[in-house]
């Protein structure tokens, strides 16, 4: 319909205003609007550390891994520790999205988007370390199934190859999962955006309109991606644990490693979700969507996985004592009372003792306490990997080849840079895409409206 000419009576009447947008849309799209000086400060800080790490890395490519202090007997240092740390962090997103989706745990709806985004950025951060750690970056394509000039193929019996496949599959699936979930929300933003953002969302929404065939295919895809991602999330950290468990190193060569690592990964991932979502909720005033109930449920998960981790720590010590193998017994004695005793006790206290406070309901709903606890758990989980990797390598079978490892400043710079890399992406995501899944929140809102209208439930 063409508008009437402005000189007629109809033209003088103001056009009918658009019906007000839904409350959910307004609240959740408001997160993406405008940027404060604090936001730019955080983004600048993150970019600074990311570029610092980039500089150190270029220097390392030029000089070699020696600058990171890698020397006999410890050739897996902070880079591998940090790689395992970030892969672990990446587990919460898929767990919340896929496993809780299959269990129909509706409380996941408020936090799943944030957790999925965190997963994608954490797995991308972890993937950086595969390149940083190999030293000769120009030869890193050797891990791909590609023959060299003599027609020699990769060794599929090596856990490092399994890792390549597991991590690249996990990165791909978590990106697909995030994007598929985002499509309806991008369409919501598209209908309300202007300028360059409108162009961006129009392209990314792929012409989503939410008709029955699209939703039908979408529901089915999310269900199947969840079904595929559930065994995947359990397999990825198992494969990472086999990088260690397959090696004949005292303290590594145990069958408990796969479940132990998976529980630890979920534990640290949930802690990271809390570390990120508590400030996000506070800054953007999302208390109506991410409630204390969500945080309490996550605390329960943290408590459960903390107990599993504590059990695994205890089982490791018991098995080394019960096995009667001197090398194993020494390895575990030195963990607790050797040169790395601080790391070990940080890990035990932060990961198994402090989370026991969550037995108290008062503390489970105490948000500042949860934030501090989640940061402690992140620190504790980094030290767990440090103890396992460095502690074991520096104390192998023959005391004549024992050595000490002290993290070097280039390693610590790249560790800081990994947080910068992660935070840069997370901060940009926060301003470009909805951090709470809008369509899924509406599903709940409309269900509530329907039940209210019928006067039942």
């Amino acid at each position, binding site marked *: 319909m063409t508008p009437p000419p402005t000189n007629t009576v109809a033209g003088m009447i103001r056009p009918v205003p658009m019906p007000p947008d839904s409350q959910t849309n307004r609240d959740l799209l408001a997160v993406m609007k405008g940027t404060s000086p604090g936001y730019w400060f955080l983004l600048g800080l993150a970019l600074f550390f990311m570029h610092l790490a980039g500089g150190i890395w270029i220097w390392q490519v030029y000089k070699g891994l020696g600058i990171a202090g890698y020397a006999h007997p410890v050739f897996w240092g902070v880079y591998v520790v940090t790689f395992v740390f970030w892969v672990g962090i990446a587990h919460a997103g898929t767990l919340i999205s896929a496993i809780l989706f299959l269990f129909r745990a509706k409380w996941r709806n408020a936090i799943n988007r944030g957790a999925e985004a965190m997963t994608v950025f954490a797995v991308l951060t972890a993937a950086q370390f595969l390149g940083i750690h190999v030293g000769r970056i120009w030869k890193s394509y050797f891990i791909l199934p590609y023959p060299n000039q003599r027609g020699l193929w990769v060794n599929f019996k090596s856990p490092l190859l399994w890792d390549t496949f597991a991590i690249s599959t996990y990165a791909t699936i978590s990106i697909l999962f995030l994007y598929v979930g985002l499509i309806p929300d991008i369409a919501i933003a598209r209908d309300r955006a202007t300028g360059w953002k409108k162009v961006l969302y129009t392209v990314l929404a792929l012409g989503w309109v939410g008709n029955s065939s699209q939703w039908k295919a979408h529901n089915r895809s999310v269900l*199947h991606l969840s079904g595929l991602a559930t065994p995947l999330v359990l397999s990825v950290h198992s494969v990472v644990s086999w990088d260690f468990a397959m090696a004949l190193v005292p303290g590594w060569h145990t069958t408990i490693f796969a479940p132990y690592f998976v529980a630890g990964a979920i534990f640290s991932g949930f802690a990271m979700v809390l570390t990120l979502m508590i400030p996000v909720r506070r800054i953007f005033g999302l208390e109506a969507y991410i409630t204390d109930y969500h945080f309490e449920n996550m605390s329960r998960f943290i408590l459960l996985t903390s107990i599993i981790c504590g059990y695994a720590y205890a089982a490791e010590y018991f098995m080394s004592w019960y096995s009667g193998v001197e090398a194993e017994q020494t390895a575990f004695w030195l963990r607790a009372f050797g040169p790395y005793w601080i790391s070990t006790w940080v890990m035990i206290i932060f990961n198994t003792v402090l989370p026991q406070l969550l037995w108290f309901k008062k503390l489970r709903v105490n948000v500042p306490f949860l934030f501090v606890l989640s940061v402690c758990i992140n620190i504790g989980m980094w030290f767990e990997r440090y103890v396992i990797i460095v502690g074991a390598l520096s104390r192998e079978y023959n005391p004549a080849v024992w050595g000490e490892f002290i993290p070097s400043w280039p390693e610590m710079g790249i560790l800081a840079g990994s947080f910068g890399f992660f935070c840069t992406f997370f901060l940009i995501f926060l301003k470009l895409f909805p951090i709470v899944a809008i369509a899924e929140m509406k599903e709940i809102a409309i269900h509530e409206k329907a039940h209210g209208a019928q006067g039942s439930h």
Partner: protein
Amino acid sequence: MARLVGIFELPAQVVAAVKQLQARGYTDIETYAPAPFPEVDDAVDPKPSKVRLMTLIGGLVGVVTGYAMTIWMANNWQIMIGGKPFTSIPPYTIIAFELTILFGGLMTVLGLFIFGGLPKFKIDPAYNSRFSAEDFGVVVRCREQDVAEIDALLREHDATEVNLVES
């Protein structure tokens, strides 16, 4: 031919309206929903989505690729590693598993694109940004003489508005 779009607030009203329209013989119906409501999608077309077939194909291709690639590559240039057989199934199962998930996931998303009609380059004029707020839409294509009947039917099912759109 004309097209009518009825605007609804609740999924149950949409389901009832669609069922009634189908019973009267109007089958060219499209619904728009702001959030996933399987009952609405099933009212339009009760058949399960064909995406499941895509996942199955992807998964099967993945598992076959995983085993075939590892076994062939290990035997293409045989090197004895740790005294293990060239064709050792347990480690290759890990690769096959990962490729099952990878191919299954990629094919699932391809299925979403194919069966969901994505990407859609031209958005139907019946689409309204209210459908990305909290309203539902039912679009019916009919002959001009049936407009009054459908209009009445949609309003009977608590449509808040019924509009004509260009077809």
